[in-house]
């Protein structure tokens, strides 16, 4: 299960809406080993594409260095799909290389970028195997 602070949930959805029609991406960091996503870190989609995302290589290095210095890890890796459901694509599965992370998918299809509910789901992706998990939105991660 993923316990997501309400303000982080809102920030992920806001980012996905803001970057629509391109895919948005980022991480939510937390103390190493805690499984608590606390620090929202939006990233630039270097691909600037409606169907692909990638952290820029230098941004990636800076991010991981910062996480190491703070003894944090990427508890959540999130991105949006702009015209398909919030479920990992074959590309997502093939490229998932952070086995400890919760992969959060948001869909901004069908007008969700402007208004109405946005579909947000969370998955584990390990060795090509996808397992959906429950998302619990909490007011404070305790």
């Amino acid at each position, binding site marked *: 299960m993923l316990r997501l602070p309400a303000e982080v949930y809102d920030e992920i959805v806001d980012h996905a809406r803001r970057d629509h029609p391109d*895919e948005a*991406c980022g*991480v939510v960091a937390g103390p190493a080993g805690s499984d608590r996503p606390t620090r929202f870190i939006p*990233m630039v989609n270097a*691909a600037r*594409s409606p*169907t*692909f*995302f*990638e*952290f820029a*290589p*230098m941004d*990636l*290095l800076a991010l*991981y260095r910062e996480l190491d210095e703070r003894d944090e890890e990427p508890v959540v*890796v999130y*991105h949006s*799909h*702009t*015209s*398909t459901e919030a479920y*990992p*694509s*074959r*590309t*997502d599965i093939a*490229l*998932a*290389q*952070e*086995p*400890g992370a919760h992969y959060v998918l948001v869909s901004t299809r069908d007008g969700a970028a402007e208004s109405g509910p946005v579909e947000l789901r969370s998955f584990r992706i390990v060795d090509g195997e996808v397992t959906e998990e429950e998302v619990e939105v909490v007011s404070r991660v305790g």
Partner: protein
Amino acid sequence: MSVEVQVPTILRGFTGGSRAVESDGATLAALLDNLDREHPGIKERIVDTAELRRFINVYVNDEDVRFTGGLQTPLSDGDVVVVLPAVAGGQDGAPRRG
């Protein structure tokens, strides 16, 4: 000569869980060959035939090796090599690059 190689989580199964290991080599290619002798199988996860894998990033002293000669990037004593898998994906129908 000694070069520190920082290993990402997904490859630590090859290094007994270590986040960083020491190896050596005059170039990145030579380093990866030596590293693979110590930690068999790790090179194949970084290199595809004769090229760096498209979705693996390698940095020498904070420079992306794609701009410093790729696998021929020269190394010196004390250099730090960082290996980081790309964070990338996208919905189906995406152009697969590389």
